[in-house]
């Protein structure tokens, strides 16, 4: 069976392709915007004999490129998404691209939709965590965000993307599996999630404190996507994706300082973060946006409210963490240290 991986050239995509190969899927079509990314995928595939990697170059904002990508495919891993840029770009790269892909799936002739499975990589950002209060456990039963306008633009775009997939699934009846990773990290990724804090000028404002970080090492995350995406019982289900032994934000920051480099950081307790958010929000409103409302009370509650997390549902499918967190963090920090030295 030929499998499609969109966004295969990305940070996560490369590992998903590797895990698919490890699970015996050796006929994979990879969509790539950047031709140079094919080389990394070919390198990864060398360890698995002579798999058939097909590269489908293009931009999924184009309906024609989407049609080419899904042609003859019955298992689709949709990873392509906007990660940065303006709100318009995030929506174009996450939501418009998804709609194009789903329309292309619908439009195929001779491919019954009921025999097609689509695996969406969504995000923790879609959960409506604010009304739950501090300390609440985030599992798959938590409703999706009901006030997207109050969230950051990345969460807004991921929320709309996932809603779109459920709408099309109800209409078309294909199998849909949704994975919601927490913070994906690893070599090639960034150093800090907002859940740890924000770098503002020369100072890192550490708001995460003792909150658990829902880290998902990129290899473990990719394994989860493949395990759930290919499991016969996963259709119509949502799975949280994070590792088992989660550090707190302050533990992560300390380890970073020890293993990568010393940075100047100021710890803001949650009440102080809320006060700061309240002041910024008020000034933003009064000044009609002269300073951006990068922190609002709502965003602060979503990012730093402090939650517990459960990946029990994912584990029930047989997923196991391949790389322990201590090893994953050490590998990531080694990469970050090398990057820092290069700069």
């Amino acid at each position, binding site marked *: 069976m030929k499998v499609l991986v969109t966004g295969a050239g990305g940070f996560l995509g490369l590992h998903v392709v590797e895990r698919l190969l490890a699970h015996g899927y050796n006929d994979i079509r990879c969509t790539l*915007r950047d031709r*140079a990314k094919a080389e990394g995928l070919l390198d990864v595939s060398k360890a698995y004999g002579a798999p058939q990697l097909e590269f489908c170059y293009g*931009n999924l*904002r*184009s309906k024609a490129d989407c049609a080419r990508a899904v042609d003859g495919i019955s298992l689709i891993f949709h990873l392509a998404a906007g990660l940065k*840029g*303006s*709100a*318009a*770009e995030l*929506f*174009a790269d996450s*939501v*418009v691209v998804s*709609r194009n892909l789903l329309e292309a799936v619908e439009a195929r002739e001779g491919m019954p939709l009921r025999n097609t499975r689509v695996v969406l990589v969504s995000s923790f950002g879609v959960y409506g965590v604010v009304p739950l209060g501090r300390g609440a456990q985030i599992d798959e039963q938590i409703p999706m965000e009901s006030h*997207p*306008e109050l969230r950051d*633009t990345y969460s*807004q*775009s991921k929320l*709309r993307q996932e809603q779109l997939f459920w709408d099309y699934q109800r209409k078309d009846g294909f199998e849909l599996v949704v994975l919601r990773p927490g913070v994906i990290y690893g070599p090639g990724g960034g150093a800090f999630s907002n859940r740890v804090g924000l770098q503002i000028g020369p100072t890192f404002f550490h708001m995460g404190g003792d909150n658990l970080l829902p880290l998902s090492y990129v290899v473990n995350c990719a394994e989860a996507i493949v395990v759930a995406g290919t499991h016969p019982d996963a259709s119509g289900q949502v799975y949280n994706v994070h590792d088992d032994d989660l550090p707190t934000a302050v533990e992560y920051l300390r380890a970073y300082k020890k293993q990568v480099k010393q940075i100047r950081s100021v710890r803001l307790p949650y009440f102080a973060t809320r006060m700061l958010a309240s002041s910024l929000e008020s000034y933003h409103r*009064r*000044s*009609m*946006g*002269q300073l951006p409302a990068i922190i609002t009370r709502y965003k602060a509650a979503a990012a730093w409210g402090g939650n517990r997390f459960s990946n029990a549902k994912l584990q029930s499918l047989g997923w196991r963490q391949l790389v322990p967190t201590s090893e994953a963090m050490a590998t990531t920090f080694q990469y970050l240290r090398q990057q820092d030295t290069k700069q």
Partner: protein
Amino acid sequence: MRTVPPVGEGMSLKIAIIGCGKIADAHVEEIRKIPFVQLVAVCDLEPIMAEQLAMRFSVSRWYSDVAQMLDVEKPDVLHITTPPQSHLSLTRQAVATGCHVFLEKPVALRHCDTEAIVASVVAGRRKLCVNYWPNFEAPALELRRLFESGVLGSAVHVESFYGYDLAGEYGMALKRDPNHWVHRLPGKLFQNVLDHILNKITPFLDDEQPLIRAIAYQGDANRADEVPGQLLDELRVTLHGAHTSAYATFSCHARPVGHCLRVYGTKNTAHVDFMARTVVLERKQALPSAIGRLVPSFLTAKDYMRQGMKNVGRFSRSQFHYFDGMRTLLTDFYLSIERDTEPPIAYREILRVSAMMDDIFQQVYPEARS
């Protein structure tokens, strides 16, 4: 005692936007700061884009069909923030339904289209304004006052510099997408920014057809693969009029990314920094010898201090937003509609800038004209 009514009192213009890409955010933000107008709806051919803009800014209605929006909402002003390929047809459609038009730059693909846009607005007895917002920033307005009051004397030479960061938000959008509409413009990347460079020169260079010489090149050969196609990213233009000359620079590689204007006058020279929002004068020195060389730096320092304090004042009055000039321009345009006066930017200026751009692109991308 007589009281002066607030600007725009009694007005209630209905505004709509077609085109919900990145720049539409700035339009929405600035429109919402103007108390006497109301943003009634937004529209984009791609419904997801219209929906996201409406959701993020709590705009009550969104459309994916501009004809339907114009028919149902009957806006007084349509902001056109689509790529320039559609500006002419959308302007005609807007004017046909009685709308005034606020147009995002670049105005059109070619000068003949700009002429058609202006003709369509004039024939329909509507008003047109193009988003030349930096010219309505406080320092630009101060420069205009200095020039008009004769402080600079006559303009001898003008230098307009515009830096661009290809690694920035807008630049990355071009680099990521080889099908981005900017790559399909006759003047490619230059066409998307050249209005902002030339429209600062035209007030000082009054010739209808100045002599123009343009050269363009790729600033860093190592970056060739990063940007699709033959995207040139450095542009130098000289313009010679009967009495004034000018030099326009567009650079993707000069750092820091600057945006400034220098006007050399027969009496004094002025330097406007659009990033730092300052305007300083370099005065003719009357003091002799070494004293004459000692004093000017203190005068310049004093000018910068004065400008810094002015900016503190603007900040404290919440008039220091990135697009503050756009708010001023929009306010002036809306008032010109309400009072039926001349719009803030003369159509002749728009046409002259457009004609110059055509000339420049003909020289740097001759193949695009065939």
